[in-house]
């Protein structure tokens, strides 16, 4: 399965909303194999103007830090006011790439962003904290914002959008194009190396109710009655 990361889906929508409001162009960038083109085409269909895919066999085994280094090389010479990213990835959940990228670019950042208000030379954002609380911070441009899910309503792709997307530019850049060396990427450039994967140890396990639907429902009702909940 290869689909856009849920958080990035909201980031792209936020970028397109800002473009519709303020003008400018949106470039979608990702690090990934050829299959990721489907995702980039989807971004183009939903309003991005250009797309860049960073891809090389040497990138395999890269951790979040290296992924940020690769993105940095591709972005550092491009003109931009704002970088939007997802706060985290749904699979490995490092919540790290975007903030490392901001630091490498030497620009300020804000994560867990739930609201973006563009101002003159800065953005005012709401960050999601714990327990339903938010904080309002101002960040000077150019900046990187890592958004939280629920910040907007990602639009559906229109037929017209898909048609237009076919004519838009999708560039692929590799190790050499980015001026990276093999030892800087992949496992050798990484901070963290996976040693093994395992199923989490079970501390508590639910008693699974079995039988037909009626039987299951009856068992639940019995349990609730015994506790005085019905």
């Amino acid at each position, binding site marked *: 399965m290869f689909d856009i990361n849920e958080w990035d889906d909201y980031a792209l929508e936020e970028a397109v909303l800002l473009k519709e409001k303020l003008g400018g162009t949106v470039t979608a960038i990702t690090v990934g194999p050829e299959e990721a083109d489907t995702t980039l085409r989807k971004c183009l269909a939903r309003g991005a103007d250009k797309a860049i895919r960073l891809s090389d066999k040497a990138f395999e085994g890269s951790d979040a830090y290296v992924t940020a280094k690769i993105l940095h090389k591709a972005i550092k010479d491009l003109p931009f006011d704002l970088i939007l990213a997802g706060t985290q990835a749904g699979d490995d959940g490092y919540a790290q790439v975007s903030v490392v990228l901001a630091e490498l670019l030497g620009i300020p950042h804000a994560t867990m962003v739930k609201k973006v208000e563009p101002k003159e030379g800065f953005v005012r954002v709401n960050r999601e904290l714990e327990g339903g609380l938010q904080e309002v911070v101002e960040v*000077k441009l150019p900046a990187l914002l890592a958004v939280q899910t629920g910040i907007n309503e990602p639009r559906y792709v229109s037929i017209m959008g898909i048609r237009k997307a076919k004519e838009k530019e999708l560039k692929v850049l590799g190790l050499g194009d980015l001026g990276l060396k093999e030892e800087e990427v992949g496992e050798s450039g990484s901070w963290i190396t*996976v040693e093994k994967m395992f199923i989490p140890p079970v501390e508590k396990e639910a008693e699974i109710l079995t039988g037909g639907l009626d039987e299951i429902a009856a068992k639940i009702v019995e*349990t609730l009655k015994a506790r005085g909940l*019905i």
Partner: protein
Amino acid sequence: MKEIFVLAEHRRGELRDVTFEMLTKGRELSQKKNLDLTAVLLGYNVKEFAKKLADQAKRILIVDDARLENFNSEAYQKVLSHLISERKPSLTLIGHTAFGVDLAPSLATELNVPLATDCIDVDFEGEKLVVVRQVYGGKVNVKASLRASESYIVTLRPATFEVQEVEPLGGETIEVPSPLKEDIPYKRFIEYFEPPAGEVDITAADILVSVGRGVKDAENMPIVEKLAKALGGVVSCSRPIVDKGWLPSDRQVGTSGKTVKPKLYLAVGISGAFQHVSGMKNSDLIIAVNKDPKAPIFRAADYGVVEDLFKVVPVLTNKILEEKTSGS
């Protein structure tokens, strides 16, 4: 002597629980490796906090500066990179919280110190630092090692390490002059914002029927509402339901929503990501319905039903209504 740093996290005049959780883990590691445990406290007029930390750490480094009153990753990073460069701790622990996520990756990058985020365990194996993390929504654990370094940064998942009563360490407080020389030009804290409260307070309900992504469509919400009504309970939810706008944010259970402890928590179509479970795991009775037998919610629940919610919920609702009519 080499140290382990624990960054004290506080907000609106209170030290946050994750601070003490990290100190518990930090103490275990410091004993194993014969390192000093140092709490690092950045803030403004925070001497009261130092007293609370004194039992838990060998020393407390305080940087007291008005520019550190509210968390600001830019100011915090400047101070911490200064302290870490000066004292070269073997390990710095930071909470994997809204603050830690904003701070740790840029700090590690500036210092070129290996970082592992959102860890549920951390240990030294010889000179090597190893961590345990969760991937794929908590279905799989990963053991990983960090590149050899004299200093590491690790962010720890909140509500993972149980705080233990310990012999007070009587930590010594050391005030470090603020290394902040000028203004913080790029990032400015403005204020806290609390979204307005709705009509329903899910933290006060005895019975919660909580709905997640499994409900698939806004049109299906009445199925769950009917069950809640039959039980005399209230509908709450996991994050995706709020993200999609199907319920207001004050119905959300979990880290970024509310923490609840009802007599009955009936989770319907909720996979049970850590962020959700930490908001409901202390409920008296937890029953979960999910068609994926591997869903982590079954590790939090007392009773589980591995079934399609669209089949189970209507049958259960009728059964409850029948029971109520016949019983009265």
